[in-house]
């Protein structure tokens, strides 16, 4: 089926081929009859061998031979000579078949089946494997079989590691050997086998080994992925750590205790009509076991109920990078101002574990103040103020006044200090530095530029408390790659966007320059909402969420986003603009299902409904991925067309304002469906809802 040239048959050839086909059919027919009637005579078994030599993929023939072997073994009553001769015959048949097609699953499995009987020579098998690997060093069947034989022989990982070294020495361009090496090395490091206990030494050796592969032929991919794995092993933090939180350590937050306000508020004034105040914990990796035993929350007002911490993850896995809970805020007396000191202690009791099995062992404490105020209703702060318009002239640059030192303080403390990182291992920084200097010699080619960009990014990840360096150079490298390798333009673009966002969120000056007051003529500036505007940045992928947990109003319009994965961490989000992006389906908006405070959503001018293929179909909780029961599917919400994606995303949201115009999915019936689905809606596409 592969690699045969296309050419029409000449009449003479056609006749010959037809005769060949007829003969084969006759043989197969006879064989199937033998099989049906359980005939295992010498002639019948030989027929099957003949067939398998012509067509090793005839799986029923391998099954038949196993039945024949079973019968013959039973008859010879364990006479070792007979047993060996029966099994040797099978091995011969397999060898003949493999000569025809050394990728035949049936043939290789039959050999394994024979070997498992325990009467065959292992050394002979290794010899056979060497022959096969000399013919084709990439045959994965042979590599699998080698693993099988090595296990039977109980060969050590160290010996097998040496075999991969031999293969690589023969030919650097052997991805299969590099892969095998990664498996063996991972095992040896995990077991802490002698000679493999110092990560520093092991990685330094491997970097040297793979360097040659990358430098010898810059287009050969054999070493690329191995090198990337080494880099990951170098910078990956073993320990689960708390990276950031909401509220931020040391913050001072004012809460109007009643649900007067139904819109936005300034930085420090929050209002939640449900009077639930979110606490968010953002870890450096996915963890389990965040609950009221492992995280203690103490505040002035009594919380008799155990807090329920939820993992912000679209699966039932009970593990996530981001966890959230809500404090139920009690009522306060009119004009009174109660201040409460809240202390969140994370991990002082055992129980939080990373998904890789490492226990959380660096307890953190976050303290902040909550002021409860019962703010009297001011005119102009009526809950029915006009709808949000995401236009430039509705935003005024934020000037930090003396009345609000807290935003500045907040932005200074976005990243949590972790002791284990400040005593950052010098060997990691040294390796990154060495590799960077070496790869700067390869900057004229794709893999060189990409590797240097990754190394510089890795360097920054080792120093999370410092401002990232080399951002400009990394951005330039990705821009060059977009031109050099246009087939993978979007891969480089997405990475470019991530670095850009790292740069934007890296300093308080940068963030402050993108904070705006939302100006509505009906509102006074006091209590007008603060918006972070990340619009018109040409970003195609989002990141740096750990720096944005404080954001309530976010403008991401006029970018190139097609996914908002990760946005679920922004639990305070109440107004969000995603207009003029590249969203293709409601399934791409899965993260919104976690934003319980979201009131205003603009997804106008996107591509929802324009695409026949949904690339987020399985990243979305629905009956298709068995993550939502079919009984949650309430048929009454459907109009004659199915809008099941929109249904699942929006059904539990308390939106007051929604914009969907400019998407192919929009229609009168869709809008009717939306109005039915969202009883709290006041504005749909700029029109007041009755």
């Amino acid at each position, binding site marked *: *089926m592969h690699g045969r040239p296309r050419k029409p048959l000449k009449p003479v050839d056609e006749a010959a081929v*037809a005769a060949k*086909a*007829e003969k*084969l059919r006759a043989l197969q027919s006879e064989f199937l009859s033998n099989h049906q009637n359980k005939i295992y005579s010498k002639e019948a078994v030989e027929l099957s061998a003949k067939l398998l030599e012509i067509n090793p993929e005839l799986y029923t023939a391998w*099954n038949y031979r196993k039945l024949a072997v079973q019968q013959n073994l039973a008859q010879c009553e364990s006479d070792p000579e007979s047993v060996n001769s029966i099994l040797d015959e099978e091995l011969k048949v397999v060898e003949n078949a493999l000569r025809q097609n050394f990728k035949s699953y049936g043939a290789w499995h039959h050999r394994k089946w024979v070997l498992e009987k325990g009467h065959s020579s292992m050394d002979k098998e290794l010899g056979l494997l060497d022959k096969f690997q000399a013919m084709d060093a990439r045959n994965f069947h042979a590599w699998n079989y080698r693993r099988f034989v090595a296990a039977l022989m109980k060969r050590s990982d160290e010996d097998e590691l040496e075999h991969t070294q031999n293969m690589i020495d023969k030919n650097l361009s052997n991805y299969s050997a590099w892969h095998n090496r990664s498996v063996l090395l991972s095992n040896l490091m995990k077991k802490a086998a002698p000679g493999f206990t110092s990560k520093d030494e092991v990685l330094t050796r491997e970097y040297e080994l793979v360097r040659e592969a990358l430098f010898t032929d810059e287009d050969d991919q054999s070493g690329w992925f191995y090198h990337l794995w080494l880099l990951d092993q170098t910078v990956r933090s073993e320990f689960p750590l708390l990276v950031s939180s909401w509220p931020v350590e040391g913050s001072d937050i004012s809460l109007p205790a009643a649900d007067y306000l139904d819109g936005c508020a300034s930085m420090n004034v929050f209002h939640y009509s449900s009077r639930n105040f979110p606490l968010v914990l953002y870890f450096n990796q996915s963890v389990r076991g965040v609950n009221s035993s492992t995280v203690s929350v103490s505040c002035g007002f009594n919380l008799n109920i155990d807090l329920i911490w939820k993992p912000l993850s679209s699966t039932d896995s009970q593990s996530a990078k981001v966890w959230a809970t809500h404090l139920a805020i009690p009522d306060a007396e009119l004009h009174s101002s109660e201040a409460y000191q809240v202390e969140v202690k994370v991990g002082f009791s055992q129980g939080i574990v990373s998904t890789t099995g490492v226990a959380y062992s660096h307890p953190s404490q976050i303290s902040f103040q909550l002021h409860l105020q019962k703010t009297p209703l001011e005119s102009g702060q009526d809950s029915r103020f006009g709808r949000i318009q995401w236009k430039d002239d509705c935003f005024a640059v934020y000037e930090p006044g003396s009345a609000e030192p807290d935003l500045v303080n907040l932005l200074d403390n976005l990243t949590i200090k972790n002791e284990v990182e400040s005593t950052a291992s010098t060997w990691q920084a040294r390796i990154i530095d060495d590799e960077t200097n070496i790869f700067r010699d390869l900057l004229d080619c794709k893999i060189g530029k990409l590797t240097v960009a990754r190394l510089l990014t890795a360097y920054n990840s080792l120093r999370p408390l410092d401002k990232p360096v080399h951002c400009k150079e990394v951005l330039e490298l990705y821009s060059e790659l977009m031109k050099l390798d246009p087939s993978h333009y979007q891969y480089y673009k997405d990475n470019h966007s991530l670095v850009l966002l790292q740069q934007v969120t890296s300093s308080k000056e940068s963030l402050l320059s993108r904070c705006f007051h939302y100006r509505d003529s009906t509102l006074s500036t006091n209590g007008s909402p603060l918006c972070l505007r990340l619009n018109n940045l040409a970003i195609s992928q989002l990141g740096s969420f750990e720096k944005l947990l404080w954001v309530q109003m976010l403008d991401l319009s006029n970018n190139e986003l097609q996914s908002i994965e990760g946005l679920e961490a922004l639990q305070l989000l109440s107004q969000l603009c995603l207009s003029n992006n590249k969203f293709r389906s409601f399934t791409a908006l899965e993260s919104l299902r976690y934003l319980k405070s979201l009131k205003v959503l603009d997804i106008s001018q996107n591509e929802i409904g324009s695409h026949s293929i949904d690339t987020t179909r399985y990243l979305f909780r629905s009956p298709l991925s068995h993550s939502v029961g079919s009984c949650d599917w309430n048929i009454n919400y459907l109009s004659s067309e199915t809008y099941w994606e929109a249904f699942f995303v929006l059904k539990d949201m308390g939106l007051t304002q929604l914009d969907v115009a400019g998407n192919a999915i929009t229609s009168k019936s869709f809008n009717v469906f939306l109005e039915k689905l969202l009883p709290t809606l006041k504005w749909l596409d700029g029109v007041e809802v009755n």
Partner: protein
Amino acid sequence: MGELAADKHVKYILAVEKRKDNFESAVLEHLRMNGAYWGLTTLDLLGKLDAVDSNEIIEWILKCQHESGGFAGNVGHDPHILYTLSAIQVLALFDKLNVLDVDKVSTCILDESDIAGLQNEDGSFSGDIWGEVDTRFSYIAICGLSILKCLDKINVERAVNYIISCRNVDGGFGCTPGGESHAGQIFCCVAALAITGALHYVDKDLLGWWLCERQVKSGGLNGRPEKLPDVCYSWWVLSSLTMIDRVHWISKEKLIKFILNCQDTENGGISDRPDDAVDIFHTYFGVAGLSLLEYPGVKAVDPAYALPVDVVDRIFFGK
């Protein structure tokens, strides 16, 4: 070269179905059930499923079913999970899953030699009673039972854990633990994880990069590093990229050109590489690839079930 010769491909498929005199059909007789699935799904994607006699086909399918409940590749051959899935998929195309009547379905699920009985202690699946283990079979079991709406007959958690044990440091998956990443195995594992709601075990950025680097200079996709491009990888790689939302990391235009170049525009059919001999296998994967690339005139295909989206939606959302 510039267009999809849909009519020619339809004619080719219908002709292959009937041809019995050439060597190729003799050698591939044992996997006719797969061939039926490839050919018929292609016809459906091109809007021409009604060109065949569904009753005749269904009759033949049922003749391939064994007392154990599993299906063989052709009449008289042994049952194997590979052909059981194709049988289920073809019946789904014709909306005739109900011919697997309740008794037969429960036998199919609970009997030792059928799908659910083929799950091993470690969560892996064997292809048949002879015990070959491969993540392909994990996908087949999960996909097949999901279509039959009885995924809970297997231990899903263990099945997922086994698949994860086959995950490699490059983000890809192999056929057994320690097996090298290969686009075919990656499709099987990613699709199985998609169907079981477990895609969070996939590092999308890492695997996405490995997958997008399958696109070589000619615009075609290979199955693993330093190998030749092949139209069938337009399915294995592309569907995997689609399921993890990274398909925008390759050049769709260049791939469309490559696939169209692999057509035999005179006699119909698509081959693995330009100017090679065509076959049903590559015809299906070429058309399915074009579907994922949103090529006009081709129905949308579901990247996890490898069936038209309207067939899958009918199974899960149909009233």
